[in-house]
């Protein structure tokens, strides 16, 4: 009896291996198929004219000739890599990577796919960097970049060689890219927050908190979820709500990077800001389930259901929603500045990603920077990339010239918001401050504590750290 069962087990396991094996094979094909499709047209032409580059392959796992002498490891954000689900991005990156690889036949780039949990994967790169094992080049979220500066390699020479000028970047990006006298990273995409609203429901977008609450109550009476935003525990939440704080002139840290948000006027501004969020929930203008939303796409289900009148979100939600509700998006939605405490205030926040070189090998350092500049940073690179992904370019000249931005009314409005955008402070303590702000917001919205207590508690924890 038992022997029979053992036999059965062995058969089932063998079958399992066989099936999984087959599945895996299919999957490999499907992963590559996107790259293959977009390459198909191109390679048909190029293969006739140019046989010397027959070994260049571009897949999400490898860019270049697999026997190439020089190997560069590259850790992009998944959303900015060939693993993304957005076809436009994948096609753009595949095309660009192929061009670059054909120009550099001795080099192969090995992309590392990482987790999507951003703060966790940033922490891990930091551990690797500290033990000298970081990828040769990696994309770092701008807010945590200051923690990496001591491991980042300067790239002034390549930036100059490529005719790029750091003064062409928006000022907020310059400060992060060049903290002291050397350029340590390349800020390659940015984004900005705005109030998205339904044109058919909201005639005049609210400018102040009071207007928003008044309008919200009215809309709620008509059965709408008047106003959504993300309020879970995530960096995105701090980012999307900090405009209310910055708009009042609040400061998180002083010029030396020492926290100041819990003292004097900053404390008052912080309390006001959290109190405003509290009133959106208390009045029912905002449903409590926003506490479950971590990233903006968590709102997609609600937005698609058509019962939401307004939300505050990041600029690439425009591209996101176009893919979810197609043409209806441009027909129904518009954007406006984020409502502020007073009518004369205006603020938003800008984030984005910085690519930075970690390898100390001089040849690799140059090649890695060259690759990133070609893909995402130089004139064609930045325009192509941002247009494919619906991102905003952090270089002023690209913003002026890029065709896709001229024709997109949303982009024009986002550009204006960028003029009023704040960035998160370039301080090592920022991740802790952000986490405490998220917790304060969570606790207040869940009715566990008052804004005053929450802010003072956050202040106590942050100051005990350093």
């Amino acid at each position, binding site marked *: 009896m038992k022997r029979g069962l053992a036999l059965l087990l062995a058969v089932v396991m063998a079958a399992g291996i066989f099936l999984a094996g087959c599945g895996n094979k299919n999957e490999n094909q499907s992963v590559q198929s996107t790259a293959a499709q977009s390459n198909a047209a191109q390679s048909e032409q190029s293969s006739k004219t140019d046989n010397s580059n027959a070994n260049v392959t571009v897949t999400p796992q490898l860019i270049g000739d697999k026997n190439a002498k020089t190997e560069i490891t590259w850790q992009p954000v998944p959303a900015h890599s060939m693993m993304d689900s957005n076809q436009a991005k994948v096609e753009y990156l595949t095309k660009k990577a192929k061009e670059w690889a054909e120009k550099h036949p001795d080099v192969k780039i090995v992309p590392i796919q990482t987790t999507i949990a951003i703060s966790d994967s940033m*922490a891990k790169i930091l*551990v690797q*960097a500290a033990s000298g094992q970081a990828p040769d080049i990696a994309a770092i979220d701008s807010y945590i970049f200051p*923690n990496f500066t001591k491991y980042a390699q300067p790239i002034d020479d390549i930036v100059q060689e490529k005719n790029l000028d750091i003064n062409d970047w928006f000022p907020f990006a310059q400060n992060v890219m060049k903290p002291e006298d050397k350029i340590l990273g390349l800020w390659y995409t940015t984004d900005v927050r705005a109030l998205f609203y339904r044109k058919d429901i909201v005639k005049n977008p609210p400018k102040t908190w009071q207007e928003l609450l008044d309008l919200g109550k009215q809309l709620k009476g008509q059965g709408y979820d008047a106003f959504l935003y993300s309020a879970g*525990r995530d960096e995105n939440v701090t980012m999307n709500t900090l405009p209310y704080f910055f708009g009042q002139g609040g400061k998180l840290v002083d010029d030396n990077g020492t926290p100041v948000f819990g003292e004097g006027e900053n404390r008052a501004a912080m309390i006001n800001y959290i109190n405003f969020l509290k009133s959106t929930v208390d009045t029912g203008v905002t449903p409590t*389930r926003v506490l*479950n939303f971590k990233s903006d796409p968590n709102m997609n289900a609600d937005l698609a259901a058509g019962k939401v009148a307004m939300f505050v979100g990041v600029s690439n939600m425009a591209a996101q929603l176009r893919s979810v509700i197609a043409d209806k998006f441009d027909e129904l939605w518009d954007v406006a500045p984020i409502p502020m405490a007073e009518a004369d205030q205006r603020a938003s926040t800008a984030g984005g990603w910085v690519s930075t070189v970690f390898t100390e090998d001089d040849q690799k350092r140059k090649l890695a920077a060259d690759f990133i500049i070609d893909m995402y940073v130089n004139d064609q690179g930045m325009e192509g990339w941002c247009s494919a992904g619906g991102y905003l370019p952090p270089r002023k000249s690209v913003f002026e010239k890029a065709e896709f931005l001229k024709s997109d009314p949303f982009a024009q409005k986002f550009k204006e918001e960028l003029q009023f955008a704040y960035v998160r402070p370039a301080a090592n303590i920022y991740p802790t401050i952000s986490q405490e702000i998220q917790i304060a917001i*969570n606790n207040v919205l869940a009715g566990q504590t008052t804004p005053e207590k929450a802010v003072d508690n956050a202040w106590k924890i942050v100051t005990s*750290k350093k």
Partner: protein
Amino acid sequence: MSRETIGKSNRLSGRKGLGETPIPWLAPLVIILLTLFIYPMFDILRLSFTNARIGETEYNYTFNSFLNLFQDSGFYAMLKVTAFFVFFSVVFQMVLGFIIALSVDKGESMNLRGTVFVRTVALISMVIPGVIIGIIWRMMYDESPTGILNYFLTLIGVGHVRFLTDPFIAVVSATVANVWRGTAQSMILLYSGLKTVPGETLEAARVDGASAAGRLFKIIIPSVMPVMLINLILNTIYTFNTFDMVMTLTGGGPGRSTEVLALSAYTQIFQLLDLGRGSSVAVLLLLINSIMAAVYFYIMKKSEV
């Protein structure tokens, strides 16, 4: 055993050779435990007395991470949440597990149809990874108008429940999901315990006219008591160590209301980059594990004698 074999085995035990000492047999086991368990345990103990941060190569030895921990009111709130979560998870896992085990055992003896089906269903959660259990229950607890549990509750007149956004209800929700996850473990242990209850004693009691409840409390429960105790300790340890399910279910939120011990250690290190403090939370977990292990050994020893 015949006299001859005894003689031979005596001769055997006198034999000396490479195969006779336990060292080569146990070496791989000892090496893997030393390098992958004992060394890291000492390392985390050491780190807990430093101010190390992720990404910094230098650090100093200090008691501050523990001092700050004990001064933080959030820490006590976290302990309370963990205690609630562990206590109610374990109690309900045991009670439900026992009820199911008892009825399946009884069903088997009565040859009831569907007994194997129910036994299988009750054990299914054992083979589902914790992260998937978290995701599944998050879908169940959906608070938007399309949420299924809220729909049923509204239907029977309870009304809309804020499963994951109310700080207290969120802990209860996490506990229910964890009961769903861990009942199988209790059920199987107690089920095997019930198999050891002597049938004759039960039959004798029945003949003597003992009621069902009397038999349950006088015979069945006392004879599965050792198994219950072991179950209690094992489930307590596993629940303290829970990390995966809570992470996908609530991520510790809202606020810190479902941030249990293990999750808190993780957050401190991988989100706040505070290696020293995260390690001190992990050391606390280690301490709890060790105490529970000691209790476990004590009970094992007692039940053996």
